[in-house]
């Protein structure tokens, strides 16, 4: 861990000003990702702006009729919030599938969006990694890549975004509210994270001085037939090889609306609205789910160790949708 200076900010303005004032500064919220990476010398901020005292720790009703999740609400408090459990069970389930109870008590909603890849090489400064050190090369492409991406990769990086929460947020059409030196803006969830392309060092479209203040969830009809499937190498406390956030809004057995987002397969949560839309009005059946899954995976490329994920992801989509279908029956 490098040497850094530290300030506690007391309000949003102070936080934004503090980060401007210090070169190489970062916000620190729960610290569960940043401190991990600082101890590995992967991230070396010269200054930390502690945002934990900011008044961003509430879950509120928003004007649209949905909920607004404060950036500093912990993952645990979000998942176990009664309104979230009732109105956004998919989000609740996704969060609870991630990390551990202790980590969820620390991890914040804002921080979760920014968590970085778990690529082995990114974490190990003895190896080449374009994300950590642009231009040094990508060790994973010809290396150990069981946990790596199969969609939206580039020759420069095949890392995945490891979040579970973000997969559900993507499925639910969340929006992220950001404030910064140039004022406030709102970012559609699909535009929040990036694909690696030529700039694998950039995870997202938020600049360093910008602070996420909250996440808006629009009102949602996906309250019954939802399922979050996380496929991983152990039953808990492990990152996803493939995860699927599946949600169905049904009329009888006909799909009124459908959401499918995948985690563990790309540099960002993977969702294709046009594919979802093409199933609206169709019957919710295994055959249709399989066909949808095939389309979702078009263009998928494996790198050896992770090639199995292509087939696995398809099966996971089918399973998650079938479980979503079933979960409505139990209610």
């Amino acid at each position, binding site marked *: 861990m490098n040497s*850094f200076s530290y300030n506690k900010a007391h309000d949003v303005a102070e936080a934004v000003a503090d980060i401007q004032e210090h070169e190489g500064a970062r916000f620190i919220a*729960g610290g569960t990702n940043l401190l991990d990476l600082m101890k590995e010398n992967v991230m070396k901020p010269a200054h930390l702006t502690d945002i934990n005292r900011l008044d961003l720790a509430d879950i509120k009703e928003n004007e649209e009729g949905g909920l607004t999740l404060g950036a500093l609400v912990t993952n645990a408090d979000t998942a176990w919030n009664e309104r979230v459990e009732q109105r956004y069970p998919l989000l609740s389930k996704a969060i609870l599938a991630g990390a*551990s*109870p*202790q980590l969820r*008590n*620390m991890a914040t909603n804002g921080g979760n969006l920014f968590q970085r890849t778990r690529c082995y090489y990114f974490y190990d400064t003895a190896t080449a990694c374009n994300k950590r050190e642009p231009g040094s090369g990508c060790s994973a492409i010809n290396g150990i890549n069981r946990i790596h991406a199969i969609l939206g990769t580039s020759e420069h990086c095949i890392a995945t975004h490891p979040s579970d929460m973000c997969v559900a947020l993507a499925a639910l059409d969340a929006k992220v509210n950001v404030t910064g030196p140039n004022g406030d803006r709102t970012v559609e969830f699909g535009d929040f994270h990036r694909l690696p392309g030529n700039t694998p060092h950039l995870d997202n479209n938020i*600049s360093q001085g910008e602070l996420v203040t909250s996440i808006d969830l629009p009102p949602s009809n996906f309250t019954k037939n939802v399922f979050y499937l996380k496929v991983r190498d152990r039953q*808990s406390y492990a990152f996803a090889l493939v995860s699927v956030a599946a949600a169905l809004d049904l009329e009888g057995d006909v799909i009124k609306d459908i959401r499918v987002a995948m985690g563990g397969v790309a540099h960002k949560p993977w969702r294709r609205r046009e594919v979802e839309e093409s199933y609206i009005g169709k019957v919710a059946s295994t055959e249709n789910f399989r066909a949808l899954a095939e389309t979702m995976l078009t263009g998928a490329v494996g790198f050896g160790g992770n090639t199995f994920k292509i087939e696995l992801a398809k099966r996971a989509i089918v399973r998650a949708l079938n479980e979503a279908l079933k979960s409505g029956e139990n209610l």
Partner: protein
Amino acid sequence: MTTESAVLEEPVVKKQELPEFELVNLTINGQSFKLKLQPWVSLLDAIREYAGLTGTKKGCDHGQCGACTVLINGKRINSCLTLAVMRDGEAITTIEGLSDGVVNHPLQDAFIEHDAFQCGYCTPGQICSAVGMINEGRANSLEDVQELMSGNICRCGAYNNINAAIMEVKSKMA
């Protein structure tokens, strides 16, 4: 939409200055500690090396094992992934705070009775985690306990006994 940004380029650390000391007030097990710490001291190291309470263990220092679990205002967290300065003014309970020297927490006795450990290294974390879990009130079955205790690795593999101890205490409390 994109803001052209260089978000994740790591700043070059130019200065070799060391972090400044700050006064950090921690209440650990009801006792107040005024520690002069640099911000790079984790809460775990503050508890162990600066406050001298070595019951809390370091198993990975990266949030991957749960050995460092302590309770902050009754909530369980991994003390290795938070800085002591970030916890200024907070009330922390460690394994040493669960027993008053005469009377143990029921979980402590149940752990002994059920042989819920072997080497004992994960045990302080397991017990603090179980206390935190019980406070959360979400574990209603053995299956829930298995999931909600999965943030604490026991390499000796004492899980069945850990769960038996927890289930017994839970049933007595109910």
